[in-house]
């Protein structure tokens, strides 16, 4: 199977869905003529034209809301945020409008829109540009939130998001854009609410989402090499809907869980996952559930400090040893 970058996978997903459905269009800052601030949308303007690949002014609130309005009338917008940090300018449109209009209209209207872009720290751009808001958006009934960790997942989940009839937030990662994974040539879709066991194991469950999955996989390798421990790595892939069954099944099997995320810990995604585990697998636990999250501090600019903020394999490894 050919390997492609995460960036290319996202690009292919958008192109294939635009090819399939004329009502799908893409808009965002620098997506067209500049080929995307991170070159994710390269070639799309040439292929689909300016009617469907649209450069916007720096007006996130305006174009996100415009997308919601267009979706009400039946179009299927893909709204790119240059980064999810900038979605905070548009949060009212996403939460009050995209998420709630279906409910408030008693089901008369639905909003088939995708909001997408990278959401990550780790690139020395400071506190305002490093937000990981999957927990804020996942807190809102009416929104779906997915955080693909690989090119394979990114492509399959973005295609699903575009065909989904409700608002979906797709959170990518600039650090992953250049990484390559095997991606099949043939079309595939990845349904939401299905976690993926990225590594099978029997001794401890490492449950992660987004780029933290890679730290968990690396920690699992270290546990195997250095301690002979078989860790299972569960990639949540989708935050809402959350695949509770896969989480519970894994923890019931291993009896131990370490939750790994780049999200901030306080009211973070893994606070929810931890709750699910105590609720559904309490009697199977041989140790308390542990979390390895970003530190509970704003993102520092300094490179050395920022590396300490984000979880890495070493921290995951040490945390696992503490409960094994």
């Amino acid at each position, binding site marked *: 199977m050919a390997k492609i970058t995460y960036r290319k996978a996202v690009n292919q997903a958008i192109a294939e869905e635009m090819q399939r459905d004329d009502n799908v269009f893409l808009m965002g*800052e*620098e997506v067209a*003529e*500049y080929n995307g*601030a991170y070159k994710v949308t390269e070639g799309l303007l040439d292929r689909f034209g300016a009617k469907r690949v649209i*450069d916007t*002014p*720096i*007006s*996130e*609130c*305006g174009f996100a809301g415009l997308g919601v309005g267009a979706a009400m009338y039946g179009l299927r917008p893909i709204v790119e945020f240059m980064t999810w*940090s*900038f979605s*905070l*300018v548009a949060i009212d449109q996403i939460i009050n409008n995209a998420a709630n209009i279906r409910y408030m209209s008693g089901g008369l209207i639905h909003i088939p829109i995708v909001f997408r872009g990278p959401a990550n720290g780790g*690139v*020395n*751009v*400071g*506190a*305002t*540009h490093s937000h990981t808001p999957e927990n804020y958006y996942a807190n809102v009934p009416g929104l779906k939130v997915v955080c693909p960790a690989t090119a394979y997942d990114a492509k399959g989940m973005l295609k699903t998001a575009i065909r989904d009839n409700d608002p979906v937030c797709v959170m990518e990662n600039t650090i992953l854009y250049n990484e390559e994974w095997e991606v099949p040539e043939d079309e595939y879709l990845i349904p939401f609410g299905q976690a993926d066991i990225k590594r099978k194991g029997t001794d401890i469950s490492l449950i992660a989402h987004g780029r933290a999955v890679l730290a968990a996989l690396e920690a699992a390798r270290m546990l195997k090499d250095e301690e002979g421990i078989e860790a299972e790595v569960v990639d949540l892939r989708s935050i809402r809907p959350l695949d509770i069954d896969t989480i519970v099944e894994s923890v019931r099997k291993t009896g131990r869980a370490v939750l790994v995320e780049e999200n901030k810990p306080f009211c973070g995604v893994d606070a929810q996952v931890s709750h699910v585990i105590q609720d559904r697998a309490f009697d199977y636990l041989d140790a308390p559930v542990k979390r390895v999250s970003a*530190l*509970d*501090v*704003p993102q*520092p*600019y*300094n*490179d*050395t*400090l920022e590396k*300490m*903020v984000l979880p890495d394999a070493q921290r995951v490894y040490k945390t696992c040893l503490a409960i094994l």
Partner: protein
Amino acid sequence: MSSTATANESTASADGVGAVALAPVNARLSAEEKIELFRQMVRIRRFEEFSIRAYQQRKIGGFCHTYIGQEAVAVGSISVLGADDHIITAYRDHGHALAVGMTMNECMAELYGKYTGCSKGKGGSMHFFAPKRNFWGGHGIVGGQTPLGAGLAFALKYLGKSGCCLCYLGDGAVNQGAFHESLNLAALWKLPVIYIIENNYYSMGTSQTRSSAGSPLAKRAEAYDMEWDVINGNDLYEVREKTEQAVRRAHEDHAPAILEMQTYRFRGHSMSDPEKYRTKDEVEERKQNDPIILFRRTLEEEGVLDEEAAETIDQEARAEAKASADFADQSPEPPAEELFTDIYKDDAQLRASLEAQKQKL
């Protein structure tokens, strides 16, 4: 290249070339003061060149937006301010920082992420602050500073001070809702805030004509019955003259205003910009209006500056910038404890949780 003619036109449309220099705010400048203004611009230029070099050597990371080409805007406008006047800007903030008197050392060290930086290495290029010098940042979210500028003006008026706030923003930032809301608040409540649009004709790779309806940008003020003007932002005297008028109105009547300063950025948006959205010819043509060269020529014509003096200033600025890079290089990294400080002013109840995290490091 329809957008590029305007900067020249605005000079021509004043009372004829040369007349601008006679405005009282410029006429009363001593030779030393004029040379000082020239020096400020040269210092910014050389500082930025060293920051680019350090970025290429990977000593600076993240984003680094240079001010090269726009020096006359910050230096000219800030030079007319008094003790109670304040400044706030976006992420392209190195020029404003130096113009308010921040040292090259603290600025360069911040770019290097060092402990000796103005924000101890925690803010980075886009987030410089110096409240003691009436400089309130350095803001990374496009348009995010515009309500803050109105808020600073509100506080000044509330406290009975006679000062005003200069709030800078880019030509791309004018399309943020926050800016429009701020304009209405400023006009409705008569807040002494002057919005200075630094129109460098591009927001990243988008030319100004592709992002904004209506021209000139400053005309948006009319909807709010607010004063506005379009200024050659490469002409230091003109910047001073027009800013001084607006500042005076703000002091006397709490009148807000929009001043559009037309200028150009000579370098890419940040450090990794292939600049395919504009031609080399366009950039070269715009460099003919280099604000530093223009002002140097003016001062030479006035007999205030000669080639030798200009050279000396340049050498000194280079040496100072080089020294700041050495200073930054040799400065320590912020210690890990710094992760857990400066989050709250009053963190008594949160200290325990922060300490617990520190223990785990």
